[in-house]
């Protein structure tokens, strides 16, 4: 078993310089603190040679010519460290973020993939170089030894097992990170190297320096071992792009979205994950300032500067083409009201589901393909007009809702047994029953009814006059009396024979309208309506 430690010397300056290639061979000094009390926190070797020292004030530093002076940016340091961690995870799945400038990897099992530890060390250095960072790599069978070797030696250092003490002997005491008091004590005693500390007797060291003395003694000999404290990899799948020129049309926008989705899906694929939701966010420009925005006519100056959309998927997927088509359909239905300056796409990662269906289950709709079909249908007919019908939990006639139609219905075993039993029972019942269906008029037709002996006798609606031959009712129902929209209706099933329409004059046309209708008297609105026709 071996461990590799990556140390980034002068991490603060390297993090600032790696993003700016023009600063590579220039003196750089970074300021930190609360303005106006800014002072030099870090600098590179060029700045040091120029005479800049840590602690100098901003005004002092700015007197030097040819020195790049900048405020320290912790966000940039975190981003660089994050990239270094990602790079480490690309080599080993077991990584520890030891310190701000140190990362330690477990190399167990990697020799068959990458080769000998020295090759792995070179690989790490090479990959760090692509990030613009110059690193030291220490490799040892002991975690602490690997860390100290990386801190103390430049380049790639491989310490074979059993030689830790001799390898660390020449390193200064400072690499072991003693406390200030202990360091001062050791300095007074003339102990400056690890070999000198390792030569001291353990018992006496313990009496004088306590537990820390023992710890430092073991570290100096390479005898102290520990396990890695593994860092959990945060699955943040976000892709962003900031545009030089604002985008206004859907086609170029779709091209950019396609690229981002390809990258996102590739990252998901590398982690064996899929996207259960995609969040789209645009930062908008001001291209449409003269046009009113939205149905309420918000002035363009007050319009929101961002546009956000969330695409939820019933089944996780990493098909970038499918996701692009779904996003396009959403954008066609609800386009942003201004040009786009920045695009950010993030995915909620989830494991792909593998559903095993029953052998004799009927073939059903392909879930991913259906999502696209559903999006197209919603664009065509409106989102509220596409879905599975739902009878609401009320006695109010005609109370229905629309819920999202899903092809992915997970059933437990007991639910499946209940479904099969219900299907068998329904099949038996269906053999004996055929229900008469009502064809509903939406919206309901207003009518005028003439009563005779408390029964409807004649009805007028839609330019037609009909004689009511038979009437069944009234069937009174009411509800929601505690609400403002309380209802109370008297329903009738009536057989209507219509008179000939004067402007048509076709006997056959008249016969087509004869039949059984459902009408009702709305006691609240005090009016008659035709609810539908039995068909």
């Amino acid at each position, binding site marked *: 078993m071996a461990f590799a430690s990556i140390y980034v010397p002068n991490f603060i300056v390297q993090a600032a310089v790696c993003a700016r290639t023009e600063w590579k061979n220039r003196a750089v000094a970074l300021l930190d603190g609360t303005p106006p009390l800014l002072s030099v926190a870090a600098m590179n070797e060029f700045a040091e040679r120029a005479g800049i020292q840590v602690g100098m004030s901003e005004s002092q530093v700015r007197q030097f010519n040819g020195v790049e002076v900048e405020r320290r940016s912790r966000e940039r340091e975190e981003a660089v460290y994050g990239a270094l961690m990602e790079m480490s995870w690309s080599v080993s799945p077991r990584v520890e973020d030891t310190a701000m400038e140190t990362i330690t990897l477990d190399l167990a099992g990697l020799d068959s993939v990458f080769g000998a530890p020295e090759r792995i060390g070179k690989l790490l250095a090479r990959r760090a170089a692509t990030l613009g960072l110059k690193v030291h790599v220490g490799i040892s069978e002991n975690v602490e030894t690997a860390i100290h070797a990386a801190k103390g030696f430049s380049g790639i250092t491989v310490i074979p097992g059993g030689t830790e003490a001799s390898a660390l002997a020449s390193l200064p005491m400072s690499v072991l990170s003693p406390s200030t008091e202990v360091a001062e004590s050791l300095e007074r005693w003339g102990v400056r190297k690890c070999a000198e500390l390792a030569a001291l007797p353990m018992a006496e060291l313990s009496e004088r320096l306590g537990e820390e003395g023992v710890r430092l003694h073991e570290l100096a000999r390479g005898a102290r071992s520990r396990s890695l404290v593994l860092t959990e990899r945060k699955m943040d799948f976000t892709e962003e792009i900031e545009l030089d020129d604002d985008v206004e049309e859907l086609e170029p926008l779709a091209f950019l979205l396609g690229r981002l989705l390809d990258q996102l899906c590739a990252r998901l694929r590398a982690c064996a994950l899929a996207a259960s939701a995609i969040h789209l966010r645009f930062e908008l420009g001001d291209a449409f300032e003269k046009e009113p925005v939205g149905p309420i006519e918000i002035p363009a100056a007050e319009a929101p500067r961002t546009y956000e959309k969330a695409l939820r998927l019933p089944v996780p997927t990493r098909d970038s083409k499918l996701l692009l088509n779904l996003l396009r359909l959403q954008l066609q239905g609800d386009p942003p009201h201004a040009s786009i300056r920045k695009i950010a796409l993030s995915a909620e990662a989830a494991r792909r589901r593998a559903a095993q269906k029953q052998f004799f*289950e*009927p*073939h*059903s*709709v*392909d879930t991913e*393909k*259906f999502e*696209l*079909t559903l999006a*197209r*249908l919603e664009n*065509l*007919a409106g989102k509220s*007009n*596409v*879905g*599975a*019908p*739902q*009878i609401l939990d009320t006695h109010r006639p005609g109370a*229905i809702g*629309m819920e999202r*139609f899903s*092809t992915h*219905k997970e059933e437990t075993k007991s639910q499946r047994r209940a*479904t099969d039993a*219900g*299907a068998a029972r*329904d*099949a038996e*019942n*269906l*053999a*004996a*029953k*055929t*229900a*008469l*269906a*009502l*064809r*509903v*008029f*939406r919206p309901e037709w207003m009518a005028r009814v003439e009563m005779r002996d408390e029964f409807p006798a004649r009805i007028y609606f839609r330019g037609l006059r009909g004689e009511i031959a*038979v*009437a*069944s009712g009234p*069937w009174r129902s009411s509800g929601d009396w505690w609400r403002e929209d309380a209802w109370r209706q008297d329903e009738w099933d009536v*057989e209507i024979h219509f008179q000939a329409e004067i402007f048509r004059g076709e006997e056959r046309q008249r*016969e*087509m*309208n*004869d*039949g*059984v209708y459902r009408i009702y008297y709305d006691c609240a609105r005090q009016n008659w309506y035709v609810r*539908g*026709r*039995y*068909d």
Partner: protein
Amino acid sequence: MPSGLAHLRLQVEEALRGRVIAPFDYHDRSAAENVSTGIDELDLLTGGFPRGALTEVFGPGGSGRATLFISALSVRTANGEECAFIDAGDAFDPASAQAAGADLSKLLWIRCRKIEQALRATDLILQGGGFGFVCVDLSGVSREMARKIPLDTWFRFRRAVENTRTVLLALEQEANAKTCASLVLKLAPGRIHWSSVRQNENGRIQSGGMLERPFARLLDGVDVCAEVVRSRVKPVTRLEIRVNHLQAGSNRVKTQEATFRAHSAGNLSRDRRESQQT
């Protein structure tokens, strides 16, 4: 000559490769699987709705088209199949379907306001595939508008379901699909049956056609005449179905009974002559 024909056949197969499977093989379209309509006697009459084909059901208002649809819907959803209903007139009543035993969670309902929307939605559904039962309801569309639907639209629908397990049903006021439909069923409304119930002074319930007031009148059922106009499976014949709608007490609970009578085409024409003479 035979070698020339074989060479020509190879050339045609090569040209159609990837687009048409086995272009010279004979496909027996009449051997399609049929599924129940939900009405036993109609199954006997028609053999059921064919899978992978277009079935056209037409008739005037009140002729039982919606009833036939919800019966078929109940059977298909009970079988676990997903169904789609393209409603060109937004006239579907979910309560009726649920009373018939349909599982509404397995039904995709697309509520359209224009015929163009309905036809486009049908294209999308059929292209997506996977539905066991697709019904497009053009009953609310005027005859003039329905006649304007190009024949190639019907042909496209038929081709979309061919070689699939989808039952495609079209409900209309008159037949428009011509030869694109494998089964064409004509429905006509018949007699409407009412009954009366009354509680007399002794508290006993009387029922009958002519009762003294007060009484409650109940809708018993509606006769529907079904005639197979064209079928690639069964010979043309006619069936008269009575669809019952019984009301029990004040709850108006719908119980269902059905009585069926089947008429051959010969008997029907004799009945017509007799009714004309009277």
